């Protein structure tokens, strides 16, 4: 039983990485922009966050550096896509390729570096509850903030005027423009906010999830986060749920390896990627279902007056 509590704890930890990035990408996509650069932004944020912690010893500054790195790359992406009308897919790919190269380049000197002693977080009293304590109440504070963030995003998107405007920009930029909303500025804000969250997720990876720096350490989590928005049919609550589900799949492999299951480790490592493919196929089978839920202008450029 104790090992299941640990599995749940590890699942929440891995799910937090995916949830942060995927919620960020959801904000982008609600405004009509797909950013395939998630992986690259997360890699740059991971090294920025790691380097900041190594040099300053402060986790908070590390997260800030990660957010900054993600937002900066997203700003470049947004400027190209929104003001120069470049192809969203190609530009996102450029962010991912550049991010992979640049993070490896900058990170060479950090490969063997160690961060200051990691703190063990726990919520007093609650942590002593048998099973539930170790399963739920020994997470990094960001893990709980992520849940709050998802709730805040639901409130923002569906209960505020600004959220309505954001969604209208994603559904029909022409109408939003006709009503006098600055479509491109709103899209840029959404892109930068999404980049900041991807950055926070990247920094969480190198500071909390696996506290070290290795080239390419994000290992496809940015792409899985992209798939999650489709899986969740663009609903924040389902994004959160999906993130924990995939976090669980990621952690299951270690659990199975620990249990001495006779499967070569490579096949277990494949699991999250295979699961993503299978889930994507299942959820996309009904094109009607996707079309109803998907922001209508996703992937399409908008230039006022054209």
């Amino acid at each position: 039983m104790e090992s299941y509590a640990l599995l749940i704890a590890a699942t929440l930890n891995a799910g937090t990485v995916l949830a942060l990035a995927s919620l960020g990408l959801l904000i982008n996509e609600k405004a009509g922009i797909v950013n395939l650069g998630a992986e690259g932004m997360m890699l740059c944020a991971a090294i920025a966050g790691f380097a900041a912690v190594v040099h300053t010893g402060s986790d908070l500054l590390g997260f800030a550096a990660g957010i900054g790195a993600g937002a900066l790359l997203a700003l470049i992406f947004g400027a190209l896509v929104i003001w120069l009308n470049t192809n969203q897919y190609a530009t996102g790919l450029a962010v991912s390729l550049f991010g992979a190269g640049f993070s490896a380049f900058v990170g060479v000197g950090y490969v063997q570096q160690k961060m200051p002693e990691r703190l063990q977080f726990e919520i007093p009293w609650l942590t002593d509850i048998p099973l539930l304590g170790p399963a739920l109440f020994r997470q990094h504070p960001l893990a709980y903030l992520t849940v709050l963030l998802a709730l805040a995003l639901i409130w923002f998107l569906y209960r505020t005027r600004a959220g309505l405007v954001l969604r209208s920009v994603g559904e029909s930029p022409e109408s939003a423009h006709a009503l006098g909303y600055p479509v491109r500025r709103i899209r840029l804000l959404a892109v930068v906010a999404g980049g900041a969250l991807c950055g926070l997720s990247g920094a969480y990876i190198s500071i909390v999830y696996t506290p070290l720096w290795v080239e390419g350490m994000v290992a496809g989590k940015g792409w899985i986060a992209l798939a999650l928005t489709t899986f969740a049919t663009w609903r924040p609550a389902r994004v959160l749920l999906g993130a924990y589900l995939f976090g669980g799949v990621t952690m299951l492999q270690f659990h199975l390896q620990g249990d001495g299951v006779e499967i070569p480790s490579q096949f277990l490592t494949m699991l999250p990627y295979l699961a993503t493919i299978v889930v994507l196929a299942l959820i996309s089978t009904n094109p009607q279902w996707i079309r109803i839920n998907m922001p209508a202008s996703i992937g399409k450029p908008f230039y006022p007056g054209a």
Partner: protein
Amino acid sequence: MLKLEARPQPSTAWTYGSPLLALVVTVLIGVLLFVALGKDPVAGLRVFFWDPIKSPYALGELTVKATPLLLIALGLAVCFRSNVWNIGAEGQYVLGAIAASGVALMADKGSSSWIVLPVLLAGVLGGMFWAGITAWLRDRFNANEILVSLMLVYVAVMLLSFMVSGPWKDPQGYNFPQSRTFDAATRIPRLFAGSRVSVGIFIALAGVACVWVFLFRTRAGFAQQVGGLAPAAARYAGFSSRRTLWVALLISGGMAGLAGALEVAGPIGQLTPYVPAGYGFAAIIVAYVGRLHPVGMVLSAVLMSMFYIGGELAQSRLGMPRSLTGVFQGLLLFTLLACDTLVNYRVRWAK
């Protein structure tokens, strides 16, 4: 304020000028980067643009790296022109390498050198199979080909890791995860003594001709591109979008698999975990910088090969990380996309 004004027609001059301008901008940023890091920018320019072409041997190495890039990019160009977003060429390349190795490992001392043909064929089929999974999931389940093809890269790399550390591990390999060195008979024939250039370059150049004919001189190739440019028109003309999807993915998967086969049976000579060298991703940039045109991609493949060799030389001679290559590749794609704005827009100064 600067304003963009749509051109009535895309500018032909900028279609060709934009990659050159992008290269100039990338080089300028590179020079600034070298200065900022306290390195001699002239030495930097030399390792990237002069050393790779200064001797026959260097030119040979340039060709060795340009060959897989060109082959993969040719297939991707067909895909991108058909509006099929296959970004998992790296995985198809790896599967091609695995399948080719399967045949190559069957060879022994008595094998005739004709075994090279089945080795290459296996590579093509391996790549096609991997791309076919993406096509099938898109066709049957409407699953996004960008995400599926990319996820399959990770799966392919894990499969490779399993093969070389499990069933195909060399028993005399000091426990390194790699296959035994392939028998000499499977080696792709080389063109000259003392250089690693093989007949692969001729295969790639034949590929250039075939793709050119396919795209610009056949009805099937035309149908592919109409599907990409104007899906509604393609439907009206009776061109099947499912066919477009399958053809695009099978061609690009086959080309990437062929590149993988040429690589394991050529310069590498065994299956190792180092087979995926990022060529599948770099080829995306090759395809765009070459304007998705077969001839243009010959030039951009050579350029990208210079980036690879320049990165290696910058590491050994200037003490810089080899990942410099990736930085410049990414920068080139960024600047190209920005410069491409000039193809469709005029920049005007407006108050």
